[in-house]
Each structure stands twice: as C-alpha cells, then as structure tokens.
C-alpha cells in the first residue's frame, strides 16, 4: 500500500494458520510498521530456515524444545520486558518454563497437551489410559502421529518412563511397544487427524489438545482426555533471534499480541489453550468447559515438557526409522 522506504520492516516467522491475520494489518496500521510474514510447516523446517540465515528474522513463534535448542546454541536474544507491559497477564506457570527457566527469552503464546481423542460412538466406556492405543479391539481404527517425539512419548509414558529419556533400554522397550502396535494402526499422520476424526474415519487418535478441541467443535461425539499415566505438555512462545535488526519493534509486536482483546481474537482463530490470565475468563462456555482447552490442574501435574535432547536425538531418529521401516 505505502511505498515508504524508511518504514521499519519486521520479519516474522510463524506456523501456518497460527494467527489471526487481521492482527497483522492492525499492527501495521497502528504502529506504522511493515510486517514481512512468513510461515513454516514444522519446527524442524523452522530450524533449518533460521539457521540458514537466509532471512534476518525479527520475531519467531515456535515450540518449546526447538526454542530450547536455539537458546542453547546462543541464537536467541534476551528480551527487555519493559517494552512488553502486557507480560503481566501471562500466567505465572508459563513464565518460567523448562526451556526458558529464568524467563529471559520468551513470551508464551499458546499451550496445549498431548492426549487421546476418541469417538464415543465407537469406543465403549470412558477410557483413561494410554492402553486404548494398544487395544486390539480397535485394530485398523487407530491413528498415530507421524512425529517421533509424540509417538515415543505415548509409548514411554505407558511404560512409566520419562518423555525425555535417553536410556537405550527404555527406548528399546518403547520401540518394541510401537512395533507391536503397528498392525493396529490405520495410519501415521499429522495433518489429517482432525478431519479424519470429524469424518468418523477412525475411532482413536493420538492428538494435540487444540486440534482435539477444534474437532470436538465440529463433531459432538468426540471426546478428549490426557491419559492418567502422564503425558506431554507443550508451550509455544515468541522469541527474538539474534539476527533481528528491529528488536524494539519486535517487542512492541509481542506486547500487541499479548493484549487481552487481541489474544481473544487469536483464541477464536487458533483454539489452543491460552496463557493469558484475563482472556481465559472471557472465552465462551464451550471452550472454558473443555478439558482440551482448559485442563484441570491435576492433569497438568501429570505432564512433562519435551526437552532438547541434543545429540541423543539421533537415537530417537534411528529407532523411529526402525519402527517405520519395519
């Protein structure tokens, strides 16, 4: 629209479909900044892209363990929280996380859990355990995720181990469990789980809470739970990579997104759990009462966050390859 050369250009990188685009327009308008908005499909894609240094991003939204990795590699700038007054509304529980233990680098964006979405018309009773994913009664109706950390997470938790274990024998056990499960699995998918569950294509699915909530909004026969053995909780957060040349404007944008009104707009678009202490009280009833969106505290106590595993990650890759190639 405006060809003003002197305008600050903010390079933003985010998952696709993870923000209400109107907010970008509004921010541009009110702060006279131009936003170059780019999207990516997976955290790994993000990592490759950022590390390539092709674009000097100013603000990135991504997931916990990937942020941790970048922080560990010294790629993330400390924030000046004075520029982000709205940070006060962020739930204390999310300010100091495993990936940012001192709360220096990030502003949390959304969060969620890993759990099981199931079709009440096809599943008897009220399951509470990971065992449902290994239930031979649902052979050919189980959807797993094509995501090694999540799939291993389910297996490890079922076995009572940590999500972040690097113990080879524990992993070997988990691998055997996954191989044993393979004949029951309809598909290893990521992108389509929600649509498939809405369409009644499968009975049980390993899924993230936000997707589950969205699916439940479309199909009332669906239910979601976080298994009692424990599970994964994840947090997506905003941070500023060291390549940024407009740190101040990036912080302004973080503040902007953390405003209550804007958070509500975003919730309405994204449907993941919010970290905003004020906004949570103003979401509509369906969301507020939904265990996917607003899990009870005891569920949270049972969950664990993914950590950056450093070089041990290779081990996961190798055994996941063996699971798939089997």
């Amino acid at each position, binding site marked *: 629209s405006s060809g003003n050369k002197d305008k600050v250009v903010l390079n933003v990188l985010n998952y696709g479909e*993870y923000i209400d685009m109107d907010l970008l327009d509004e921010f541009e308008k009110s702060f006279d900044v131009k936003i170059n908005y780019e999207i990516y*499909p997976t955290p790994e894609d993000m990592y490759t*892209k950022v590390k390539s240094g092709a674009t000097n991003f100013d603000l990135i939204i991504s997931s916990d363990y990937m942020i941790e990795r970048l922080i560990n590699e010294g790629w993330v700038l400390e924030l000046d929280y004075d520029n982000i007054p709205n940070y006060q509304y962020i739930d204390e529980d999310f300010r100091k996380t495993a990936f940012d233990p001192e709360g220096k680098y990030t502003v949390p964006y959304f969060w969620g859990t890993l759990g099981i979405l199931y079709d009440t018309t096809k599943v008897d009773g009220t399951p509470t355990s990971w065992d449902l994913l290994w239930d031979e009664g649902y052979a050919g109706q189980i959807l797993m995720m094509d995501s090694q950390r999540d799939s291993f997470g389910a297996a490890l938790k079922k076995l009572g181990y940590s999500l972040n274990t690097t113990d080879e024998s524990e992993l070997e056990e988990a691998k055997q469990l996954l191989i044993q499960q393979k004949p029951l699995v309809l598909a290893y998918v990521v992108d389509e789980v929600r649509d498939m569950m809405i369409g009644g294509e499968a009975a049980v699915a390993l899924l993230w809470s936000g997707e589950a909530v969205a699916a439940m909004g479309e199909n009332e026969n669906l239910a979601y739970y976080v298994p009692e053995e424990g599970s994964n909780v994840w947090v997506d957060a905003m941070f500023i990579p060291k390549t940024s040349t407009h740190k101040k404007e990036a912080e302004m944008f973080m503040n902007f997104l953390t405003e209550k009104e804007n958070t509500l707009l975003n919730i309405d678009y994204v449907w993941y759990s919010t970290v905003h202490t004020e906004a949570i009280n103003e979401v509509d009833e369906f969301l507020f009462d939904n265990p996917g969106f607003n899990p009870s505290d005891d569920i949270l106590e049972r969950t664990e966050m993914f950590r950056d595993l450093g070089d041990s990650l290779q081990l996961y890759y190798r055994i996941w390859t063996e699971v798939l190639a089997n």
Partner: protein
Amino acid sequence: MVKRNLHKIYMGLIFVFLYAPILVLVTYSFNDSTSRGNWGGFTLKWYIDLFNDRDIKTALYYTVIVAVLAATIATFIGTISAIGLYNFNKTPKSIMVNINYLPVVNPDIVTGLSLMILYLSTNMRLGFLSMLLSHITFDIPFVILAVMPKLKSLNKHLTEAALDLGATPLYALRKVVIPEIMPGIITGFLIAFTLSIDDFVISFFTTGSGVTNLSIVIYSMARRGVKPTINALSTLMLTAVLILLFIINKRSALVDGQKNNGGNY
C-alpha cells in the same frame, strides 16, 4: 465402429479418473464446514473470505508471477540452449544433455537444499530473486527436453533453404526454425509453468523476506487443516484457465478460418 466407442469409453474413464479429485475439490469449496470430512451445507463464504485473506493473496501473487516469469525465461533460455546444444559434437552434447538431466533426476528436497546452500555461500539474500532463479533452474531442463526432439526431427534443409534465400542465421532461426519447433516450445513452456506453479520444496528453501507461494501456504496450513478458502481459490483458478482455453480455442479457430479464406492479400 465398436473400436471407436471403446476408445471413447476408455478416454471417458481416464478423464473421470483425472477430474474426480478436482470435482471433489470444487465441491468442497462450497462446503459450509471447515472440515473435509463432512458436508455442512452450501455456502459461498470461502469465496468471500478469499478476498480478505492476506496470506493467500500474497501467495497467489507470487505464485503466478514466479510461474509466469520462470516459465517464460526458462522457455527462452531453454529453446536457445537446445538449439545450441543440438549443434554440439556428439560427446560434449551427450555430456551436457546428461548434466541437464540431473535436476530432473534429483529429489526436489536435495535440489532445494543444495541451491539454498549455494545462495548462502555466495551471501545472496533469499527472496523473490533466489526463488525465481531456482525455478528457472529446474524449468530449463524440461524445456530443453521438450525442444530437443523437435529439433532432431526438423528437416535440416529448411534452415539451409532460408539461408540460401538470403536470411541471416538469426532470421532463419526466428522465421523458420522457431515456428517449426513451436509445438515443442509450447509443450516446454506448459511443463515449466505446471512445475513452477506446483512447487513446494524448492521454493520453500530458496525463498525468504516474506515471499511465499501457494504451495508453501498450503503445506504450512496442513497442520491446522487446510482451509476451504484454498479450495475456493483453486476453483477460481480452474475456471479462469478453462475460460482462457475456451478463448484461445475460439481465436485459433478464427485464425485458421482467415488462413483458409484470405491469402490473396
């Protein structure tokens, strides 16, 4: 006669096979539900959304611009180079033709990443230009592969005749060789355009600075479920192309007609 009908039935089935997914896609662009799984009634809202969708609009813009530019430039370079290569001696020619084959053989992801490494090691800023260059690079081989056989089947006496009649080699090229190999050039262009418009992997790794294309948008959306807006967009594009085809057909019929009637100038 029976055979004729068999042909028709076979082609009919093939076209059903080819267009069934397209039909599904078009149908779901009118689906009043965000999910592909179920039918929520008829709506036009995705078409309205489309015009307000900033993401999709920029992506569409870059997709079309890059595809048109890359296909055009690649067709130009490819045609010229094919003519050049055609005149190479046997061994260098076969080496070049084989190198030319490599991008076709290579997995996109390898091409994309290796091009990215190339740009970065030359300190080139990723963005529109790098994406365009990459598209041109993987388009050219297909153009060459489309043009080369036409050159081979070209009666070589035609060029000679043109030269003989006083045409400079360049004039002969423009007025005789190019028109003669035009079908190959058009095929090459179409293939290049098709590849460009559909490319995700190579674009993703070689773009930056806010430049995206539709494929990147679609792939990045996939996690959260592809919005039916994209279906609406595809439907519109399909319609546009069909209308274009129709017009071209009408026009060429007209031109043909003129050819047959006029001529006495």
